[in-house]
């Protein structure tokens, strides 16, 4: 193959692992291609970039991206990534996973990593259900939505993820739909160069297990829904970012603040211990 025939992002994807396992109409492909575009845009040193994911459809991203990548246990991508980052602060660590993985089984790790301001980017591809296990209810399933374990409609209030991230202490919080591919790419590039705990929620269609039970039988149907309901509102109060069937979906960049990271404060403490000899009786 001639160099000019090569796709410009080939180096970032494991071509020998294609085709991927995702269903037709799934939003994960767009999320992943926006991510690799963003890596290029952010001018990151690819050898230093580490991807960690948990379990589920989104968890498979780690295997398709050509960086050092770790496909860990269900819900534990964040603490695994924390270990990587704290042990080697030079690494750029990205957690790429799904709503069930990050916010049901992994919810506790998310809030604590945000609270500690661990320098990492967490990307959550939210498809409102557990896709890989066949479409069960998740912590982001909207009220009244049908899933295989809410056959009469969901009766549990879902998480508003940007609000949760914001309340837990994240320094960068944004939400996009996969229809906003360009804004999403720019936002990921921005977050990749942001210091501290950053969070991006990506709303993505899942026609196979969520859509077909909720009057959105094709991926295109859910994209139409985004087109109809999504409202771009940078700096919006995340309290208002609830996702309710039939109502507007607020997207945009909500939070972008500066705060010292865990590693920075830790390094300062180490410096003090070594220079002032505190801690020695």
């Amino acid at each position: 193959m001639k160099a000019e025939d090569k796709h410009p992002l080939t180096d970032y994807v494991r071509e020998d692992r294609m085709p991927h396992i995702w269903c037709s109409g799934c939003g994960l492909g767009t999320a992943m291609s926006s991510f690799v575009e963003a890596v290029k845009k952010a001018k990151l040193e690819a050898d230093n970039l580490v991807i960690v994911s948990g379990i589920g459809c989104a968890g498979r991203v780690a295997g398709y991206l050509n960086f050092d990548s770790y496909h860990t246990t269900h819900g534990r991508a964040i603490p695994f990534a924390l270990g990587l980052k704290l042990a080697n602060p030079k690494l750029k660590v990205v957690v790429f996973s799904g709503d069930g993985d990050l916010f049901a089984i992994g919810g506790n790790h998310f809030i604590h990593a945000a609270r500690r301001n661990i320098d990492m980017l967490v990307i959550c591809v939210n498809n409102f259900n557990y896709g890989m296990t066949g479409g069960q209810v998740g912590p982001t399933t909207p009220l009244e939505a049908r899933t295989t374990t809410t056959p009469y409609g969901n009766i549990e209030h879902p998480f508003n993820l940007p609000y949760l991230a914001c309340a837990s202490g994240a320094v960068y919080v944004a939400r996009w739909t996969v229809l906003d591919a360009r804004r999403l790419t720019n936002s990921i590039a921005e977050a990749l160069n942001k210091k501290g705990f950053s969070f991006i929620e990506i709303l993505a269609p899942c026609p196979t297990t969520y859509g077909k039970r909720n009057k959105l039988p094709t991926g295109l149907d859910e994209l139409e829904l985004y087109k109809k309901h999504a409202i771009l509102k940078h700096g919006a109060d995340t309290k208002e970012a609830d996702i309710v069937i039939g109502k507007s979906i607020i997207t945009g960049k909500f939070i972008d603040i500066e705060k010292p990271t865990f590693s920075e404060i830790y390094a300062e403490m180490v410096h003090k211990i070594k220079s002032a000899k505190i801690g020695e009786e």
Partner: protein
Amino acid sequence: MVERFISGNVACAEGALKAGCRFFAGYPITPSTEIAEHMALELPKYDGIFIQMEDELASMAAILGASAAGTKSMTATSGPGFSLMMENLGLGIMMELPCVLVNIQRAGPSTGLPTLAAQGDMMQARWGSHGSYEIIALTPSSPQELYDLTIRAFNLAEEYSTPVLVMSDEIVGHMCERVSLHSEIEIKNRKIPSRPKAKYRVYETGEDLIPTIPNAGTGYRIHLTGLTHDERGYPAINAETQERLVKRLNDKITKNAASLVRVEQLFTEDAEVIVVAYGITARIAAAAVREARSNNIKAGLLRLITVWPFPDSVLKELASREKLRSLIVPELNYGQIYYEVERCSRGKSTTLVPKMGGEAHTCNEIYSAIKKSVSK
């Protein structure tokens, strides 16, 4: 060389620092807490990282992440926390990431007796994570051994590219004794890949069956997964790959059992009855055996220092001796290692001497069992 009068838990933390541990993630749980506290005090002085995590699941995941970055890492816990670490222990075994997990055992089930000793996690250590695997677990009997065996645990983890367990108990963890913080044990570090990056396959191994896994950020662009994977580290969900991978994971430990297994024998040469014990129980058993000898009973002691892989060949050889009439297994549980001893006993009478209540056996309890076994 420094000698200090310290607890087993502090000795364990000192051993870890000596071995080169520079990352500790843990969640406080009695009776292991002093290990975390000592690491919190000391690690920053070594430019290491101490972090108290939100729970044990996160602690185990974090030390695997730190290991993936190339740092020697460790966590310490006790019974209920150990249970919570089991899933990610399996991930460490599957990804083949070196690290050390210390369990200062307490009485269970469940919350049990939080401040009192037991040896109730010995089978959880062996089989607690799901799937078929082999594990290396060491059982110290003294603060000095908590120091020495913690260093050895790090060495074995690095050498075999796998998590290694230190299975102690509350009494050894909390007792204070003189400990030599020596440097007599050679410190081993994991191998770094030497093959060119283009041709590199992360789980390709030589005859030793042990992979050389590059640290994150060194340009190899590896993929590690908890899924069944091929030599490239890529998921391969089929029977053939599962068989090849799991067989290698098991073989890399079992084929080296002879060098991994360490035991101590006392008066076993002519013994008619042998006590098999480990941890705090082994020290009391030694006194009971001496008491028996002073009363002309031919008793001996086999002290397990490596408990997994189990010293099958040592026990089978002892059990096959004609003079040997019976085996006695005192344990702070209702029978765990006892069943392993029975499995290797070649039909010789094997007696469990269980002890509940969070205390160690008295010397007399073990001595009585010895006496009874020879009077039959």
